[in-house]
């Protein structure tokens, strides 16, 4: 036990040292930027760890759940656009009601007609087709009307104008809803079906966010999301801040930017600690032991009367909700919503590297993985450039090969991550901070 504790303290110490070195060598502002993204990555990694580490579920759609968190920030925080609501808001809502009604009627009809499968399938298909066309007929004119209202500035419904912090739990709820649907379909089948189904849903979510301009402005992006923290400009004009910087002899520009980043850090850290606390409590509770029992031997757990499919669905939803919260935090930090920035490599598989490297099944491991891997992802590019520079020293300054390689330094990132993942999986499959298993401590 003390061994793992010492190891934990040592590894987090190394991480802190690395971040401080960035502060000393490069700049404190940069160090804080990295820390903020590290914290968000750590929350995402905690979400994946809940699914993979506790229950052994492979979620290949982290990107989609994070993007839903981003969507929540728009729906909650942006001011509503009254003109577009007038133009087509009711139409969109009505279309949504019709679509929901169609689904409900389908489910109802299927249950009623179940004894005769052919008849049931045909009826459901007919209802679905009619419902689809009715929805489209209501939906499309409304959307066209909305998107015509000042397309360069708005052209979307806007949000509710609430404080952006509210969006974080809402992001979690949206992600949980999507997870419920995918989980109901794909859980309980072969283990990799969930991977493929989640891969699909995440692509679809991002496609929707890119193309439904009435909701997210699509590729025109939503800029100027309200912040939960003060603005630099306001700080630079605030009397107390000017006094503070002159007293301590700081540069006001830099001090204001650092102050804002520290505010973000405080908020993110609060969320991280909260999620970490809950995850630890859950893991060490009877529920957590049950989850691990199911993970390690589904048949035995089922024999003990545990509802394996139900528990899987539960844990899948919980993990996705945490990812959704992290996604909302990320969009809040960016201050804008850019659907094109959601890439599976960065948002799904990188999070997986974090969990595997940190130690699947251990919450502190996931947090450490989030910090370490994000740090490596950021620093792989400059380090890679240095490395290429060193290797190609023999070549002429303007040799095309050397220039091509230096241009490609950014692709050191996926290469490094692939290598790190493969090496850790092979030589230290339990990760940097291994899972603490109750009985088998001596191993």
């Amino acid at each position, binding site marked *: 036990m003390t061994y793992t504790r010492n190891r934990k303290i040592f590894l987090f110490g190394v991480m802190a040292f690395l971040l401080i070195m960035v502060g000393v060598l490069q700049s404190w502002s940069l160090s804080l930027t990295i820390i903020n993204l590290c914290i968000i990555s750590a929350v995402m990694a905690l979400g994946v760890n809940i699914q993979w580490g506790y229950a052994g579920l492979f979620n290949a759609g982290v990107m989609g759940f994070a993007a839903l968190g981003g969507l929540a920030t728009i729906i909650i925080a942006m001011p509503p656009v009254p003109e577009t609501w007038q133009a087509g808001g009711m139409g969109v809502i009505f279309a949504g009601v019709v679509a929901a009604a169609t689904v409900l009627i389908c489910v109802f009809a299927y249950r009623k007609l179940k004894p005769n499968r052919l008849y049931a399938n045909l009826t459901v298909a007919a209802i679905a087709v009619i419902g689809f066309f009715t929805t489209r007929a209501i939906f499309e004119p409304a959307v066209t009307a909305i998107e015509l209202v000042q397309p360069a500035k708005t052209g979307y419904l806007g949000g509710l104008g609430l404080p952006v912090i509210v969006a974080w739990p809402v992001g979690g709820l949206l992600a949980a809803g999507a997870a419920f649907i995918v989980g109901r379909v794909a859980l309980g089948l072969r283990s990799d079906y969930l991977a493929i189904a989640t891969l699909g849903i995440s692509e679809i979510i991002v496609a929707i966010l*890119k193309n439904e301009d009435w909701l997210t402005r699509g590729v025109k992006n939503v800029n100027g999301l309200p912040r939960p923290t003060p603005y630099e400009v306001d700080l630079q004009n605030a009397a107390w801040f000017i006094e503070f910087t002159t007293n301590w002899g700081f540069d006001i520009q830099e001090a204001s930017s650092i102050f804002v980043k520290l505010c973000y850090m405080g908020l993110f850290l609060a969320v991280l600690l909260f999620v970490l606390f809950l995850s630890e409590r859950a893991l060490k509770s009877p529920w957590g032991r049950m989850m691990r029992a199911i993970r390690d031997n589904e048949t035995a757990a089922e024999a003990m009367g545990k509802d394996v499919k139900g528990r899987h669905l539960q844990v899948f939803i919980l993990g996705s909700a945490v990812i959704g919260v992290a996604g909302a935090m990320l969009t809040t930090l960016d201050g804008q919503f850019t659907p094109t920035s959601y890439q599976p*490599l960065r948002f799904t598989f990188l999070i997986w590297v974090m969990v595997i490297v940190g130690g699947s099944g251990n919450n502190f491991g996931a947090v450490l993985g989030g910090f370490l891997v994000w740090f490596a992802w950021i620093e792989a590019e400059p380090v890679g450039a240095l490395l290429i520079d060193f290797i190609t020293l023999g070549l002429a300054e303007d040799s095309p090969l050397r220039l091509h390689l230096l241009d*490609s330094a950014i*692709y050191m990132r*996926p*290469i490094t991550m692939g290598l790190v*993942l493969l090496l850790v999986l092979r030589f230290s499959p339990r990760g940097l901070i291994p899972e603490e298993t109750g009985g088998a401590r001596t191993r």
Partner: protein
Amino acid sequence: MDFLNAIVLFSNFVIVPGLAYGSQLALGALGVTLVYGILRFSNFAHGEIMSFGAMIAILVMWAFQGAGISIAPLPTVLLALPFAIVATVFIVLGVDRVVFRYYRVKRSPPLILLIASTGVMFLFNGVIRFVIGPTDQRVDDGARFILRVRDFREATGLSEGLAIKTSQVISLGAAVLCVAGLFWFLNKTRTGKSMRAYSDNEDLALLSGVNPDRVVMFAWILAGSLAVVAGTLYGLDKIYKPFTYLQLLLPIFAAAIVGGVGNPVGAIVGGFVIAFSEVTLTYAYKKFLGYLLPSDWAPEGLAQLLGTDYKFAVSFMILVVVLLVRPTGIFAGRTL
């Protein structure tokens, strides 16, 4: 006349592209299904292996073009294909030796192999961008069309034209050749039969003296070759973009699952089912219906069921329906 016009229009925009795309998907899904049948895991690196193979083919193609070698009217990349297959198969076998073999010997659960395959995906992804960069590359030199719209119109006197691209015919032809070769190999040769036996019942096959290393090696050789052909054909038909291959993973896996994972016939059928569903659901039927219906019945909008940006949604919906109704796929079982 209107009826003929409608048929030509439909062939031009749905049937011909659907056949070409379906062939490419079927070849990709065959590779996934082979790896699944023998090695028992979903290979997430398959998309990047396709991309890697296509990249090698393009590099060799450039070398040929530089040396002035061509097989016009056919695209030069076909000449480069054998070289790309050999190179990619060697790389894939090396990856298996270094990465996957360890977990196979240890009998790790399939999800661990899946995670290892995402590591391989990362590596390939970076290497491809390192070598050829993230930008688009044109592959289709030689004669682009076998049948042009204008020639067709002049020959038949119809107002609609039918165009057939060289790449579409090559796709279909290559798919037929590959599938025929694969089935001959699996059903007639000793190694092929031992692969089927191994896939059907591993313990029994081992007991009967099947050499597992050999079976696995051939599975990778076949999957790698099919991946190179599929990747190159896709690049030839559309354009070679490194990032599209990660997105192709979804339709390919959907095709494999729809047909029944581990079943080659299923992979082919699944590939065409996915391709035709995608094309038919995202095609705008306005003009087509205009020919068939009386003029005052013609639809006002595009009469398109789904925007082309949602083509992933089609594979996903089919996947969901199959998982709900028949989780084993159309052709149940995991035998090759």
